[in-house]
């Protein structure tokens, strides 16, 4: 989230896409309801808001929304594109914001083009774009920064009239997204779409603000990245980024998925979103030049870019201590450099190819998660060894006895290690709003259970001993890795929290801000975005000054609660908040200030800007200090599938793309089976006529709650939701057993016939049904134990395709084709 849960109550309009907060994040949803209902506030001040829910299924979120739009899954780019077009065609954008706070005025180089579904630079043989054609036109002397790199300054036209200005290109691009086109792609009736467009059109006024809230219903598509970007573009055009009540807000699904993304258990990054070095980068200079943002405007501070090297060296110094020296580029060579994408699906792709020897899973079960669970099972069976660290058995620890698997023929050596629960250890959980909240150890570990990090510390120690005794491949990083804990085999989370914050090696003090980190080996920071969370004064994540005293703890009344836990970066509660105020530093809406300039300093939230920089100074920095442009990017060359979002069909779709039928799907999405030479596993609409999507229920969390009897009692068995009209056609009644099949596998579950789903009408008057599949069941858990026969085919992801967004590699869990029959 750019903002945070409590902040949603400040919105005038809430657009919800690819999410069902009333059921999936019910307690967070109270802030949506408060935006509508808080009787102490009026419209524009946290009450009287409108809520629009676009979703294939009418859920409890829809029930509390003012407008529900039945949308075809995977078509939200068309929906947002239509809204963008409406805002641009009718001059409803926030003109001052667009001109000064976005790259609308930047001129794009000649040669950029978009035609028949393809952007310029496409290479069909490699299924990729040469993104150099998506660059700005430049002029004048190059600008410096990051250190060692220069970049030519981008040409701008502040009238926004230049035909190659980003603004005009955007206008042209989205002009195709007429209400008729939106309707034929999404299935939303034109009049319903127009009523929402009119509401959204009001939100470009400076004293109005809209928020967009989404979840994995937007990310789990081959166009996942662009789906999010299309919403972000709309928010930039309406001037809603950086403002209380605004922003792009991802509701994350797991207790600490945010913290563990920040700390980079992710193949492509190092802690704090530093890029993992790539092959060919021989030293820090080359790494920084390839990875850090570069200034393209003289008024761009480019804070991230100019500090990239400081952050990286502080990380290396923290990890490799005395072995990280100036002479060896601070042990830059110790960091592994991946040659190919190494994300989730790639792990099982490599396993299927026989190239992956061992997999370690903690709190994640590959079999249930999928996609294409049957292929994942085959992949696991090809491993030499599998380690599952978990408090409870999973469909992965038990994969060798999954229905259809022959354990006697599977040579994978499997370990199941009893790990502790969250309540048996302390440490922080970071919520969707980036609030890092410390929890205490409530009870000691149960029985033989051990903390995950103690298991890893023990394993590392034993591996190190083996290398010491026997030698082996490149042992330097193993020997040098710092383990400066009281007991290196049992590090305390408090010690690690201090390490993450970092310290000044000269004075021995904890660092207080990442702005003070250096690239000369005198500072450390395990994750620079958490620098400041644990100063000498103590662990700020432990703070709990909340609503017990709102006057003292929330002096601005804006719900920041700066002394409740700690949020990154620097305890800031709304990101990009410089953009919440106008050029002079006055809040766009005085009733909902983020930060404001009082003549000498910025007050309010922790400013995303130098605390004393006078906004009226001609040399004042542009508002978005973290990127090279200094402004929000309506056009970006950081995406691999296009500088502007475009609607592409899911890989299994009921119709050809109405915009460009010859380039129907995303032309650069990564097709694992095809690339590996395995047989095609995509199905076509003639054999699989129904659109399917998957989702979560209130009573379960992914797969772990299959072990919680109270929750199993509330939602005891696997089912699919089928629209009434389709059920009538097929003679299916609620409670009937049905088989749902895709080209990859099948489900055998109970039918739940419902009016929550219904037919939609697409291009060419084609009637399409969508069916809904909750994901929570499998062959492990209380229900499965009680129904061993019935639960054989309960893995929802047996149906889903192994294909992903080219950049994010999010699988297309949310849109695929199936057939359904009663049996």
């Amino acid at each position, binding site marked *: 989230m750019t903002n945070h849960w409590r902040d949603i109550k400040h919105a005038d309009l809430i657009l919800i896409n690819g999410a069902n907060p009333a059921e999936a994040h019910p307690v967070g949803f109270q802030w949506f309801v408060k935006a509508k209902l808080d009787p102490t506030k009026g419209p524009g001040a946290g009450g009287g808001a409108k809520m629009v829910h676009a979703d294939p299924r009418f859920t409890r979120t829809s029930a509390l929304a003012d407008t529900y739009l039945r949308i075809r899954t995977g078509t939200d780019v068309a929906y947002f594109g239509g809204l963008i077009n409406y805002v641009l065609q009718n001059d409803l954008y926030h003109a001052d914001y667009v001109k000064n706070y976005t790259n609308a005025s930047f001129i794009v180089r000649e040669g950029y083009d978009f035609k028949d579904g393809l952007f310029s630079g496409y290479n069909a043989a490699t299924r990729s774009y040469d993104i150099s054609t998506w660059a700005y036109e430049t002029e004048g002397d190059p600008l410096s920064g990051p250190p060692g790199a220069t970049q030519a300054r981008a040409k701008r036209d502040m009238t926004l009239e230049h035909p190659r200005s980003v603004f005009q290109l955007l206008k042209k691009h989205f002009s195709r997204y007429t209400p008729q086109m939106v309707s034929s792609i999404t299935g939303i009736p034109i009049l319903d779409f127009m009523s929402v467009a009119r509401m959204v059109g009001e939100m470009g006024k400076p004293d109005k603000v809209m928020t967009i809230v989404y979840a994995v219903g937007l990310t789990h598509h081959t166009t996942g990245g662009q789906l999010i970007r299309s919403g972000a573009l709309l928010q930039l055009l309406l001037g809603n980024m950086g403002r209380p009540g605004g922003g792009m807000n991802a509701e994350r699904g797991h207790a600490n998925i945010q913290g563990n993304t920040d700390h980079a258990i992710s193949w492509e990054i190092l802690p704090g979103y530093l890029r993992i070095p790539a092959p060919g980068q021989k030293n820090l200079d080359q790494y920084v030049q390839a990875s850090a943002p570069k200034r393209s405007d003289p008024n761009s501070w480019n804070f991230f870019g100019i500090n990239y090297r400081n952050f990286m060296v502080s990380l290396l110094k923290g990890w490799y201590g005395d072995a990280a020296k100036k002479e060896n580029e601070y042990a830059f060579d110790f960091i592994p450099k991946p040659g190919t994408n*190494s994300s989730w699906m790639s792990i099982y792709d490599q396993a299927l190819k026989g190239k992956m020897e061992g997999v370690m899973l903690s709190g994640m079960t590959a079999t249930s998660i999928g996609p294409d669970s049957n292929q994942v099972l085959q992949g696991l069976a090809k491993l030499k060894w599998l380690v599952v660290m978990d408090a409870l058995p999973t469909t992965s620890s038990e994969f060798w006895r999954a229905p259809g698997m022959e354990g006697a023929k599977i040579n994978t050596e499997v370990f199941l290690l009893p790990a502790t629960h969250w309540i048996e250890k302390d440490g922080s959980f970071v919520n969707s709003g980036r609030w890092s909240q410390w929890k205490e150890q409530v009870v000691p570990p149960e029985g033989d259970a051990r903390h995950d990090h103690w298991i890893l510390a023990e394993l590392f120690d034993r591996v190190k001993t*083996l290398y010491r005794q026997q030698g082996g491949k490149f042992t330097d990083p193993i020997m040098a890795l710092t383990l400066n804990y009281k007991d290196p085999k049992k590090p305390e989370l408090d010690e690690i929290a201090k390490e993450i914050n970092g310290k000044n090696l000269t004075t021995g003090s904890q660092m207080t801000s990442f702005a003070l980190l250096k690239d000369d080996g005198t500072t450390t920071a395990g994750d620079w975005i958490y620098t400041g969370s644990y100063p000498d004064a103590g662990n700020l994540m432990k703070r709990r000054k909340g609503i017990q005293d709102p006057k003292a703890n929330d002096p601005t009344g804006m719900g920041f609660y700066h002394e409740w836990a700690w949020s990154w970066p620097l305890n800031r509660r709304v990101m990009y908040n410089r953009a919440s105020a106008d050029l002079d530093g006055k809040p766009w809406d005085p009733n909902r200030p983020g930060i404001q300039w009082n003549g000498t300093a910025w007050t309010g939230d922790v400013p995303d800007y130098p605390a004393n920089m006078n906004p009226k100074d001609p040399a004042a920095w542009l508002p978005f200090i973290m990127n090279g442009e200094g402004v929000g990017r309506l056009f970006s060359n950081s995406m691999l599938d296009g500088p502007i979002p475009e609607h592409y069909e899911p890989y299994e779709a009921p119709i050809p793309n109405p915009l460009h039928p010859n380039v129907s799907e995303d032309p650069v999405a990564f097709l694992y089976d095809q690339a590996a030479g395995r047989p095609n596993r995509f199905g076509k609409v003639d054999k699989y006529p129904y659109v399917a999507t998957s989702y979560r229920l209130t009573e379960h969390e992914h797969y772990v709650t299959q072990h*919680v009897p109270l929750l199993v009692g509330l939602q005891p068995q696997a089912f699919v939701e089928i629209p009434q009209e389709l059920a009538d056609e097929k003679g299916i009644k609620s409670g009937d057993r049905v088989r749902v099949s895709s080209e990859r596998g099948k489900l055998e579950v109970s039918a739940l016939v419902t009016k929550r789903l219904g037919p939609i009408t697409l291009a060419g008057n084609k009637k399409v049904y969508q069916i809904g599949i909750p994901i929570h069941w499998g062959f492990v858990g209380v229900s499965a134990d009680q129904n061993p026969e019935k639960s054989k085919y309960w893995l929802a992801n047996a149906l889903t395709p192994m294909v992903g967004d080219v950049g994010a590699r999010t699988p297309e869990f949310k849109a695929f084709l199936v057939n359904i029959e009663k049996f």
Partner: protein
Amino acid sequence: MPELTRREFLKLGAGGAAGIAVVGNPLGFDLKAAKKRQIESRITGAKESKSICPYCAVGCALIAYTKQVNGKTEILQIEGDPDSPVNEGRLCPKGASAMQLATSSRRVEHPMYRAPGSTKWEVKDWDFVLDKIAQNIKASRDNTFVAQDASGNVVNRTEGIAFAGGAAFSSEEGYFATKVMRGLGVVHLEQQARV
């Protein structure tokens, strides 16, 4: 009248409630107060610890009440923390039943081992499994380590080991996992964000 928070209500205590009861209840006693006393007695003297819900990422703050019973810490109750600006004491069905996850009888009790080709688990001790896994890690690292790629670039990567996990880790555990895995040269590093 300003809204009474749940915490303030609890602080009013039984005395205040009993005073109202004399007037309000013809039977001369107040069922509400009696019920409240019963709940209070369950957690009276209990240790109050601060936790966070283990399920979704709303990040609802919890209070866990524990008591020492026969030298063992026993969880008595887990409830929403009324001070939290995030949940203001509220919990959903999952959070409200968090205690059942914490005290599950279905826990993995000991390290378990399934040998290649076997159709059953065997109970093992920690030393057995840790030694074996450490040997596996070293062997797979040595088998699949690439010091230089085909173009001669120094890449120092372990291609044949993957680590995935962490959505239920404390952040600090997650950071430690990243550090150790990168230290071993692992490139296939993943968690729940994409899936």
